[in-house]
């Protein structure tokens, strides 16, 4: 059995927090450049140029792409042939986030209680999702999630008869309501199926997929295209100032569900959709 000190996980997560917040994902950069070629309106082009310039300045100066460096969402796939040693996994993850946010001069945006709202000054606790999988690798994704877009995310328990049309209409309405506040062009994570909580989890996890990588599930891939076309016809555009590009990508994850239900969750992410990946 492979032994892995949890301190290695701390170190990895600390670095991933900085990388995710400072270096815009290559698929997003590509999407911005692509949209710049397609857009005709002067204001849309102007905003897209600013986004590229902003990403370049962040990378060069090693500062955050956006001041909202988010709540740190950590996804882990832990091989069942690994034994984690040297302390609690949860503490190790939180220490990694605390270290990374301090070292990277990232904003600490977490309050201890949603009602009392006292800043913890460490950006912890993080949100941790773990899954036990085959093998002896430990895979880690860090997703700093900003709340301008998180606040606009939605979930709905549709009826089975609502079908694809119901899903498309629900997502389109959510994007319309999100509007300029959530920093369009967006990336949409859409979770379909499972239970109430599972659909929301899938929507978040879907955001990890590079938007230039095709969905391996053909039905989902076709639905992604339909949603994308519909949403981009809204004309919200970059920064909500009008244009063809309201979303850069739609990522669907779906799962088995109950005979009576069709849960759909849409997790809206801004044009700075951030994540970084590492493996131990």
């Amino acid at each position: 059995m492979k032994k892995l000190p949890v301190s290695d996980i701390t170190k990895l997560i600390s670095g991933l927090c900085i990388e995710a917040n400072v270096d815009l994902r290559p698929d997003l950069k590509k999407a911005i450049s692509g949209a710049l070629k397609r857009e005709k309106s002067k204001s849309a082009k102007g905003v897209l140029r600013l986004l590229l310039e902003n990403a370049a300045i962040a990378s060069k100066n090693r500062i955050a792409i956006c001041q909202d460096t988010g709540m740190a969402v950590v996804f882990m796939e832990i091989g069942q042939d690994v034994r984690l040693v040297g302390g609690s996994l949860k503490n190790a993850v939180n220490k990694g986030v605390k270290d990374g946010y301090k070292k990277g001069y990232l904003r600490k945006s977490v309050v201890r209680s949603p009602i009392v709202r006292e800043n913890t000054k460490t950006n912890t606790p993080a949100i941790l999702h773990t899954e036990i999988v085959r093998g002896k690798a430990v895979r880690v994704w860090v997703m700093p999630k900003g709340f301008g877009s998180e606040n606009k995310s939605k979930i709905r328990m549709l009826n089975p008869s609502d079908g694809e049309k119901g899903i498309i209409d629900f997502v389109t309405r959510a994007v319309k309501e999100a509007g300029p506040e959530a920093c369009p062009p967006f990336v949409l994570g859409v979770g379909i199926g499972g239970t109430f909580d599972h659909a929301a989890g899938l929507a978040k996890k879907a955001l990890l997929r590079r938007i230039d990588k095709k969905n391996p599930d053909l039905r989902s891939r076709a639905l992604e295209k339909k949603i994308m076309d519909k949403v981009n016809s809204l004309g919200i555009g970059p920064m909500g100032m009008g244009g063809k590009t309201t979303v850069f990508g739609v990522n669907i994850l779906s799962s088995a569900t109950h005979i009576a239900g069709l849960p759909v969750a849409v997790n809206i992410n801004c044009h700075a959709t951030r994540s970084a990946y590492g493996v131990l």
Partner: protein
Amino acid sequence: MNKLTLPLKKEEIRALKAGQSVLLSGIVYTARDAAHKILAELIKNRKKPPVSLKNITIYYAGPAPSPRNQVIGSCGPTTSARMDIFTPALLRSGVKAMIGKGRRSKEVKDSIIKYKAVYFLAPAGCGALLSKKITKKKMVAYKNLGPEAIYELEVKDFPVIVGIDSKGGDIFKKRRRPR
């Protein structure tokens, strides 16, 4: 491009039209959710706020910490709509300009017209770029709020677009279809 120095003069505010691009230079004060809640409370109880609100510009922002050898970390606008319930009271107390992102409520728009103020949009999600337009940062009040404290920032050629002008013209009301 139109360059303006803060604080804005009455006639400068009157001349601004929704959709216009402007470069701002001068002093702005950051305030977001927590600071707004405190300021509104102070106004309600007729107590003195930590900075005079007369003619000031408020920037809805919570900056990232300043890295070594840099004035400030990433510092872009946050969603203005969350401040909407506090804004009319602040405008009544003398605030003349606001910088943020996104749409505002009808009450805010009515107050902007009533008090002859202006609402600017800063490029959302461009905090790294905007940090380079900030030349000074000073903590003014509520240090314990961390990023939600009130900072006095000196900005130089800070790029904004007029979102809502003093006559109620609103950039988001003239939404175009994609071309």
